[in-house]
Structures are given as structure tokens and as C-alpha cells.
């Protein structure tokens, strides 16, 4: 049994992951804590046909989302044509008027997208969330695969699966595609960031410089990297792993010490590429999620291949009525929150909580979405000498160079708590490798 061979190595692999610093940092009560990101050796296996179906749906979705971002920051046709109400754009914290009429290189907004999906017990895949700002997670299955191959080469000789070690090459291609001339850098906020391991790992694998804000400077309306001798070299593309808010203290949060003064000014002039584009937060908005199938129809004239989880907007009277009538079986999400926060299940609320929540929802209907709880499939994870079933999702990565490309792997995250549907790493879950079979 080849799988057994791999499973026997779980402990070793986790030890190696710890040694390589594969950690996930979280802030709890204002304190930074690093914790290991537990790896489970039993892979999630996706059949070849099933993956090509996902591929089709994901490419379609990301293509439409890119068109949406371009439209919102320019003509706003989708709003004028009343497909999406204005409230969902202009009252969203993700919409940035500073990005109005700014055209990113080659019109690409979301170069690296992380799309979260789950597979229901009905065997259907559902999209849970789009992450078009700074999605993290690709490095974990990359290094896990590497270590698994080393500890159990036989497993990979006897199973026909797609090699996922091409991610670095795909990423490099994506970065080079928009580079306007000069070096390519990965901008990290530093080692106290939750995903610092990933930043350094991707830099090493892509051959890009790993830099922090103080190593970059704007001069003559261009961006430069300053090395330890004080030599300056032009930078043409920045894969920035810091959020819009902290990117440039002269244009956004003035308190930011991790950003680069004036980087947004030279970006506006087209003198450097930023990946992903500032302003993408509007596409991640949980309220906008509801409209993605409609935007696919609107921009591409096609029906969405991949379905959303059934979602209701209390903003619409009819949906509000439905939500109130079915409150106990729905999950409610605050559109302003991310990372598994601001998610509550109607069934788990006390009567008082429920009353105050409904009061808030009636006062600020735009702030919430309600969804049917998808009963998604469990995956086996090792526990002791046996296996237990736990909820798991999949983050698929779509890279946009000349055309969208779906990485033939992904990050499978699972909940460690048997009763929880929330798999976010910031909530203490673990991860698996994702195998895409090649035949």
C-alpha cells in the first residue's frame, strides 16, 4: 500500500515542515503567536475529468471578475445597467475611489486569485469565496509535495498525478508578463506576518528578490531597489504581500511604516506593475459574491459553470423575508469581516442574540449576507493510529498572464474541530496536499 507508506511519514514530514519554518502566525488579543500549520498526509484526490470541469469554471469566474474590476474603475456599465445596485459598490469598504481611471498593465487586476470551494455531499462543487487581494497558501502544498516525494518516492511513481512543483514557474511568468522593465520583487511586511514563510519560499523558488518597504524607493517617478551598498536598480514589478491600506503612507494609511512613499503615484503613471492591483477588495466583498454569476452572464454571455452557495441579500425585501422565515438553518456573514470572523450560524444563537442580530440586520441590511449551510463532504484525516472525518475546503489558485491558468493542485484546509465548518488557518485548522490525477 503506497498510501500507507506515505502516511507512516506524517510525523517526519511535520517535523521537517517545522524545521523549514512552515508556520502560520496569528494575532490573538494583540499578541503575535506563531503556530505550526499541521499537515495531514492523506491527500485530497481530484479526478482528471472533475478537475477539468473546475478549471473551466474557475477560468470563467476569474475572467469575469477581472472585467468587473476594470468596469468598476472605469465605465461602471454593470451599475448603469442595474445588474448590481450602487450601494454594493460605493458603500463597500473594498471600493477605492483613488483607483478611478487607473489602468493596470495589460488591464490585469487579479494576477493571482485564490478561489475557495467546497464539495457538497450532493457531489457538487460550490464556490464559497473569491480572494483577489493577497491570497496566500500556495507555498504549503508546494513544500508538502516536495517533502512527501522525498519521504515516499514510491507513492509518486505508482500514482499518476500532476506535478504541482510548476507553481513557481507559473508565478514567475505571471510576474514577468506585466513587468515594465527592471527587477521583480516580492514585497513582504516582514517576519511577523502570518504568511512570512510563504513570502520567502516563493521568492526563493521564483528567483525574485524578497524585499521589505525600506529597501524600495521612488525617484524620478520610478521605483528602485536599493541594495546594501546603496546601489539603486530599477524595479518593474512588485508582487506585494501587503494590503492596499499599508502600501503607501502618502496615499493611504499615513501611519504605515511597511509601505513605500509614492509607490501608488508611480503605479498610476504605469511606471511599475503592482500584483495584485490596488482596489481589488471590491471583488472580494461578500456582498459582491452574490452577483458573480450575474456578472459572468453580463460580461461573457455565459451561464456560470460553478455555482455559488445559495445566497440571500437582506438588502432585497424578498430575501429579507426568506432570511427571517428560515433564520435557524442559515449561516450569516458580515460582509466587512474576513478570515472566518463575523460568521454565525442561525441555529447556534440564543434567543437574545438572535433578536439583537435581526435588529442590526434590519438597520443595516447591506452589511449582511445569508447562505444555506452547505453540507460539505468530510475528508479523512489521521488521528492517532486511525482516521477521523473532518470538514475540508479547497483553495484553487488561478494565475493570469496572457490568459488564465488554473494551478493543478491547491490548498486543502480542514477543520480540526469535529463540529466546525470553519476551516481557515487563522482559526487553527490544518492542511493537506491536493492531488490532481493526470489520467
Amino acid at each position, binding site marked *: 500500500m503506497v498510501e500507507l507508506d506515505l502516511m507512516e511519514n506524517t510525523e517526519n514530514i511535520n517535523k521537517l515542515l517545522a524545521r523549514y519554518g512552515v508556520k502560520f502566525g496569528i494575532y490573538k488579543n494583540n499578541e503575535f503567536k506563531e503556530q505550526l500549520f499541521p499537515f495531514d498526509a492523506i491527500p485530497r484526490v481530484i479526478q482528471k475529468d472533475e478537475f477539468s470541469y473546475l478549471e473551466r469554471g474557475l477560468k470563467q469566474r476569474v475572467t469575469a471578475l477581472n472585467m468587473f474590476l476594470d468596469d468598476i474603475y472605469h465605465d461602471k456599465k454593470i451599475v448603469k445597467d442595474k445588474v448590481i445596485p450602487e450601494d454594493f459598490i460605493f458603500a463597500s469598504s473594498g471600493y477605492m475611489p*483613488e483607483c478611478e481611471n487607473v489602468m493596470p498593465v495589460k488591464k490585469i487586476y487579479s494576477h493571482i486569485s485564490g478561489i475557495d470551494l467546497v464539495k457538497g455531499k450532493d457531489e457538487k462543487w460550490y464556490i464559497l469565496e473569491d480572494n483577489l487581494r493577497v491570497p496566500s497558501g500556495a507555498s504549503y502544498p508546494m513544500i508538502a509535495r516536495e517533502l512527501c516525494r522525498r519521504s515516499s518516492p514510491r507513492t509518486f511513481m505508482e500514482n499518476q498525478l500532476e506535478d504541482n512543483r510548476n507553481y513557481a514557474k507559473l508565478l514567475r511568468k505571471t510576474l514577468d508578463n506585466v513587468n515594465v522593465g527592471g527587477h521583480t520583487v516580492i514585497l513582504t511586511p516582514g517576519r511577523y506576518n502570518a504568511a512570512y514563510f510563504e513570502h520567502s519560499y516563493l521568492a526563493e523558488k521564483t528567483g525574485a528578490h524578497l524585499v521589505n518597504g525600506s529597501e524600495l524607493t521612488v525617484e524620478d517617478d520610478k521605483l528602485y531597489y536599493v541594495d546594501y551598498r546603496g546601489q539603486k536598480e530599477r524595479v518593474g514589478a512588485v508582487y506585494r504581500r501587503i494590503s492596499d491600506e499599508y502600501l503607501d503612507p502618502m496615499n493611504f494609511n499615513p501611519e504605515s511604516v511597511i509601505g513605500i512613499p509614492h509607490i501608488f503615484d508611480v503605479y498610476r503613471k504605469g511606471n511599475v506593475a503592482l500584483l495584485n492591483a490596488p482596489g481589488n477588495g471590491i471583488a472580494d466583498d461578500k456582498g459582491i459574491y452574490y452577483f458573480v454569476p450575474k456578472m459572468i452572464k453580463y460580461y461573457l454571455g455565459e451561464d456560470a459553470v460553478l455555482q455559488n452557495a445559495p445566497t440571500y441579500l437582506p438588502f432585497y425585501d424578498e430575501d429579507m423575508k426568506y432570511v427571517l422565515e428560515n433564520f435557524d438553518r442559515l449561516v450569516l456573514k458580515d460582509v466587512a469581516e474576513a478570515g472566518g470572523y463575523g460568521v454565525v450560524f442561525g441555529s447556534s444563537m440564543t434567543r437574545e442574540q438572535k433578536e439583537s442580530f435581526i435588529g442590526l440586520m434590519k438597520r443595516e441590511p447591506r452589511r449582511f449576507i445569508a447562505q444555506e449551510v452547505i453540507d460539505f463532504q468530510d475528508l479523512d484525516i489521521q488521528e492517532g493510529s486511525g482516521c477521523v472525518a473532518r470538514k475540508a475546503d479547497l483553495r484553487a489558485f488561478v494565475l493570469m498572464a496572457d490568459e488564465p491558468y488554473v494551478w493543478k493542485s491547491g490548498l486543502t484546509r480542514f477543520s480540526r474541530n469535529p463540529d466546525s465548518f470553519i476551516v481557515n488557518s487563522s482559526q487553527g485548522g490544518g492542511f493537506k496536499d491536493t492531488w490532481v490525477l493526470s489520467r
Partner: protein
Amino acid sequence: MSRKLDFLYRMELDFSMPAQNHQFTLRIVPHSDERQQIMACEFNLEPECEMHRDTDAFGNTYIYGEAKQQHERFAVTVKGSAEVDGKRHISEKSDGDMRFSHYRFQSQYTKPGDRLLEYYSKNKRDAGENAADYARRLLHAIYTDMEYKQGVTDICTTAEEALAKRQGVCQDYAHIMLSLCRIADIPSRYVVGMMMGEGYSHAWVEIFSDGFWYGMDPTNDKEADDAYIKISHGRDYKDCIVNRGVFNGGGTQTQHIQVIVEQSAETRGK
């Protein structure tokens, strides 16, 4: 009839210890529109350094750059003359049903809480009431209910907080007015500029009504007339910050702002 004005905007930042690598962005240069013609405008910066000029997403001119060398003073002078027609207003076409949406929804400083909502319910816009007429009513209400007092609020104070104190300065008056106009579905924006007799920079608002932007100054209970020169506009204070900077060193800093707007020398005495 328009009036000719001479203006001077001088900002001095003195450092107790030398500052260097001083990155700056200045929204301090007025531009011409239908109500004001900028006839001449000199911009001077001390120390001398590399600078660039651009127009931001809101349409404001801004100047940015870096003073690398050590300096104990950072001083900006904008000096010029303008011809202002107080009876004219900036016209703009709204884009179908999209009526300047980013000025119609609440922003960081204007988001109403219970106090503003309550205040609005006492000062409601009547059904069918013209936006400019309503804004004129608001001007007077805010002027009456607020007390002008320095040092009670600061640059971080929101409209809701200022209304709770019932005291504040022009920035607070403007934010309260914006919040109320936006509750009433009137596109409205924050304006920074200069005003005759003020001696300091000033803030007021512009509200959109029937194809025109009307300047309204709740701090002085009046519409912006030919004594007002506009510099910039945006959703709220944050979009119009006159001087943004980061630098190394500097110790403690002292800022002086001097603004003079007066009847043009050539027309004075007529």
C-alpha cells in the same frame, strides 16, 4: 461681476533637529474652474528638491517629491491671483442614474451614528425639496446648533463625534453637513480652500443640485461667494490633506500656516 483677489498660502514646518529623506505630497495648488480663474500662481518649496506634479482621481492638482538633504525647515509658498465670480457655480453632468456616487455615500469621517440620525430626523429634507434649498436650511441649522471652538476636536474627529460635543472647527462643521446631505441622498463633497479674512486654511462643502455644485460654508452660515478660493475637494478631510509627509529625524516639529486673501492690488480702492 467677478472680483480679482491676490492670495498667499505659506506653510512652514520647523524641525528642532534636522530632518532628511523627507517625502511629501502637497495638495495646495488651486486650479481654474467655472467660478474661479487662477490668473497667476507661483509655487515655491524650500529646500530645493525633485518634484512631480499630477492630478489625482478627484481632479485635484498635487505635487509630490522628496527632500533628501538635511533641512531644519520645510516651507511651501503658493502665491498668485484669481478672478472669482461668486454668482457662478461649477457645472457637471451626472452620468445617468449614477449621480456622483462616491460623493453620495458616506465616507470614513461622515458615517452617521445615532446622534446624526437623530439630528437628521429633526432637520429632515422635505419630499421634493430642492437640494440647494435644503442645504441652505442645513447651513443655518448647523451654524446655530454648533459652537465654534478650537482645541475641542482634532483631525481624527468624525462628524458623529463632533456633533456629540456640539463644538468644533470648520472641518467638523463640514463633516456634519456632508453626513446630513448624504443621508438626504444629495451628492456632496469636502472642500479645502482659502477665504478672505480667515488667516488660515478653511474647509467648507459643495453640494450637487440641478446640474451645479454649490459651495456652502456652515462655519459662517453662508454660501461660498467671491471671497473664497477653492484648492481641492474629496469625500472628506482625508482626501484633501494639504501636506502629507514622512521623514527621518526632525525631532519635534512646529507648523505655521499663513493665508492671506485680499482684493487685488490693481483693483483696490476702486
